Structure formats: C-alpha cells, structure tokens
C-alpha cells in the first residue's frame, strides 16, 4: 500500500509520543489508537498501518522468541532470559516455544538478531560446507 510522506511523518511522531523513557508505554499506545479511531483523520489506515509496524518492530526488539526441540525447564528458561538481558543491557521479555523441526538445540531471535544453535541449522551449515 502506498503511504504518503505526511502519513509516515504523523505515524512516526505518534510513535515517539508513545515512548516513556525510551520504552514503549502500553497505556499511551492504547490512548493513541483509540484517539485516532475517534478522530478519524485523513489517511487513517496508512497512519495506523505505519504506526502498527513501528510498534511491532519495537516489541520484537524487546522480545526474545526462544524455540527449542523439546520444552525447556524453568531453570533453563530463567538462565536464557538472564543471559539475554546481560547481552542487551535492557529488559527482554522471553517467549518460549517448541519447534520439533529444530531436531535439537535452541534458536533465539531478538529483533533481527538470531542465535541458531539448533541441530537443523548445523546440518544445513555442514551440507553447505560440503
């Protein structure tokens, strides 16, 4: 969808307004979305789509998606979360999931950073190297 410069500009300034101390504030986001819905400005949909994308990318940046072949125990989960916070030096919310396609090991994705320690990835690397 074509998003005009103005819509992009508005979405960006709304996004900036939804931050408190550099972090996304859920209450502010809700207020902005409700306010937009009520005010119905021109180009409401492009503004909302761009705003949604900026918010989504920010959430992804602060959320770790941890996938493993088998479910991880609580101790391991805590260890991974602590380690991620140490690397990024900011609070990182972790979501844990099970993906049998990994065969073994863990794959962690934070924003666009990926640590892939899965067996599936190693096999892929090995086949590429051979």
């Amino acid at each position, binding site marked *: 969808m074509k998003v005009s410069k103005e819509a992009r500009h508005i979405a960006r300034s709304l996004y900036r307004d939804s931050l408190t101390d550099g972090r996304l504030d859920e209450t502010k986001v809700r207020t902005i979305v409700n306010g937009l819905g009520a005010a119905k400005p021109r180009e409401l949909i492009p503004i909302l789509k761009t705003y949604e*994308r*900026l918010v989504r*990318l920010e959430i992804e940046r602060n959320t770790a998606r941890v996938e493993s072949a088998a479910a991880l125990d609580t101790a391991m989960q805590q260890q991974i979360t602590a380690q991620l916070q140490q690397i990024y030096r900011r609070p990182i919310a972790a979501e844990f999931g099970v993906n049998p396609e990994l065969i073994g090991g863990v794959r962690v*994705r934070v*924003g*666009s*950073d*990926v*640590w*892939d*320690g899965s067996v599936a990835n*190693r096999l892929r*690397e*090995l086949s590429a*190297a*051979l």
Partner: protein
Amino acid sequence: MANILQEIEQQIAGAKRGVAKQNVGTVREIGDGVAKIEGLTDAMLNEMIDFGNDIYGIALNLEETEVGAIILGEYTHIKEGMECRTTGRLLSVPVGKGLLGRVVNSIGMPLDGKGPVKSDTLYPVEKIAPGIIKRRSVSQPVQTGIMAVDAMIPIGRGQRELIIGDRSTGKTTIGIDTIINQARLNRAAEQAGDKSVRPLYCIYVAIGQKQSNIVRVVNVLEEQGAMPYTIVVAASAADTATNQYLAPFAGAAMGEWFMDNGMDALIIFDDLSKHAVAYRQVSLVLRRPSGREAYPGDVFYLHSRLLERSARLSEKAGDGSLTALPIIETQLGDVSAYIPTNVISITDGQIYLETDLFYQGIRPAISVGLSVSRVGSAAQVKAMKQVAGRIKGELAQFRELAAFAQFGSDLDAKTQAQLERGKRIVEVFKQPQYNPVPVEVQVGVLWAVQNGFFDDVSVDKLKDCQAKMTDYLTSRKSALMAKILKEKALNDALIAELKAAVTEFKQTYR
C-alpha cells in the same frame, strides 16, 4: 580415504563451533528483481544478502525499518515472508589469468560451456580507485592498429578514451580491432621470446546487447586468435537489470587484478548508455528519487567511480595499468545529451564517429575535428610523432578548404595542392575492419604521404598503391621495418633508408 575422513571431521569441528549471532530479515515485498526486507538491522551498504538456495542479493538501500536489495539471479524463487540473512561479505568475482579465453557473466560464472573457471582469487566488484600517490602519468602507448587513431588520437596505457557515435557507426569495431591488434602483438612477442614487450590483456564487457551480437564478437575474436588474451563479460539484454548494472564493475575488478600484479590490461565497456539505462531501472524500482531524464542523482558517480578505476600505477605500486575504452551511443549525433556529456567530462578524450562519414565510405568514420586525446600524445611512439605531428592540422585545414572550394573554381596552386594532399590523407586513413596495421608500417606509409610520394597517384588508385606498398615494406624491407620498430624514432639514416625503399617501390608501381 583417510584424508577424506579427516576433511569431513574438520568440517564437523568447524560446524560444531560456538553459536554465532546472525542478522536476519523477512522479505516483505519482491518484484522486478528487487526485494524490500524488514529487519536486517546490521546490514551494510553493498553487502551480500543470503536468501538461501544459492540466491544472493545486494543491499543497496538502507532505510529506517527496511532494506532494499537487488537480487542476483532468479528472483522468482523468493517468496514474501522468506527469511534472509546478512553475510558480512561484499560481492566478489573470480579474477586472474584463468579467465583469459573465457566468456563469463557479471558474477564470473562461465557461459561458454568450457567447464568451471580456474581461479583461486576473488576481487570485490566495487573497489575504491587507486589514489594519487599510487599513480603516475601515462607514458606507454596502446597500439590500436587503426591508423587514424594511432596517428591523430593516440591512446596511452592507463588512459580512458571514450568511443562515441550513433548506432552502427563502427564503435564496437574500434574496440574489437584494438583487441585483435593486442593479441597480434602479444603473440609476436611470445613467439620471439621478447621479455621487454609488456603484453596487454583485454576485457570486453557487453552490457545490454543482443545475444547474437555478443556471439558474433566472440566468434570474430576466436577467428582472429584473440581469445587467449581476452576475457568477455556478458550481460545481455535478456539478463536482469541488476546483472547489467554489475557487469562493468565485475569487468573492472578482473582488469584491476592485472594492474595490481604489474601487468597491463585494456577494458572495453560496450556500452555505458545501456548501463545507465539498467541503473535507472534498478533505481526506479528501488524507489530512489529520480532526476533529469528519470536517471537517479548518482548516475554521474556511477560512471566516474567506474572509470576512475583505470589508472597507470607507479613503479612502487607495481607499474601495472588499466586502460578503459568506454563506448557511448548517441541519438542522432546529439553529444549534448545527459549521459554522453557526463562520460565525455569523465574521460581523457573521445573518438567521435559520424554517420555521414560512415556512409561516405570513410571508415573508420572518425571525425577528426571533434575527436581528441588529452593525455595520449605523451605516450605516442616518437617515430609516429615525427610523421603524424602535422597530419591532424593538415586534415583540419583540408576540411576548411574543401568547404570553401565548393564556392569557387579558380583556386591558386597552393590551395589546390593542399586539397589534393588532404584527399590523399583521408584515403590513406581508410581501413577495413579486423585488419590492424602494425605501427612500423603506419610510420612508413605516413612518412610517404607527408613527403609527397603519393601526390602523383590518383585518389581512386591510392588504396591499391598503399596496399602494395604495405606488402613491399613488410616482405621486401622487413629489416627496415624491424629497425623502425626497435629504434622507435626516425633518425637521418633511417629516413634515408626509408626514402630509398619508397623511391624503389614507386619506380616499380604500376
């Protein structure tokens, strides 16, 4: 067998190493060979992006939340939502002598069915040109074998000389003739075991041309025995705009290898008009702001950074050189269009070809008045300088007089003589394609013209006389020709010998 097991174990050990951080992104849009990727926060400009299944892209646009990448190869296999990753590498092509005699595409993959390219060195396609400290001025000639060029618009090793003209005026032919002449010189030096001759390797880059044209060029080079000293980089009209955009840079990288290793290379970009069009397409699809004639703002930089890579290096830097002959196709002779003026201002001179001259039968159709070589005369062989020094002026004078003579029939004897001499000079410079003339023969013929030996030969018989004289000089007076080639200058003794030879020939010529 044990070795193979060891190798596999090494690979396993390599794969076992600690988990490295990767930077990934998700394809949001794909079309026209361009992908918009969300994520890839660590992507660098011109970095290769791995889409899996041996499909790579190059990051050209780094935006706030997106990366715009051009796809190398088949982009239809890439789907929306696919994951891709950064590689930390720049696009590189194989370089080295293993490519000589091969036809490759813009990423160095063979197209000639002669098996894989033998090369263990890779060069990045985009490279910053050598700086001023590493350079020296042009001092060695590139013998094109085309009399009009070697005499009046001399080209030196490391020079950038533009070949410009309308469609079908013989632009490519000048490039091909030059390649053929280099092959002839290289082979002669190899056979004579002469180590003092620096071979000149050639790279022909075909951009956006019909495949049939490319095949024809390759066939000509093969027939003339020039392929062993030539690399052909082909991005035909059927290739994607991405490949057409990258082809000259890939060719330049191959040429730079020769230059960096103390050798000389010549690169022909055929042609940069189509290259600019391909780059315009890529830029528009990437939604970059467009400027004049919808070309992006950096179309000048595109060509300047490419042509700046040709240089003559100092002895400290290896003494190599890369000479560039870019070709530009004009529309109806308009040299003041956007791309032609850009490239004219970047290069060290131009060879301007005119349609009118071509159809008058003056081939190569070089317009002497508009063609110029800004640095080449420093590299011209001294013997050539001695005989051709005044020719450009005489020819210009002839054109002026010829225009004037149309209005009056009563001309004084001096003007008549100038006109007659001019006609003969024009005739002498006519040359069939793929038929380069050795420099020593050029010197002999031009000396004869300068000293009035052709004045009593009628213009329509002059070509015949010139051909017979060339035969005579190469077969009967080969020792004299060898002397001229060796001495590279005409001293009194040589002039006397040349005079005797030409007089002897004239006595026998019927």
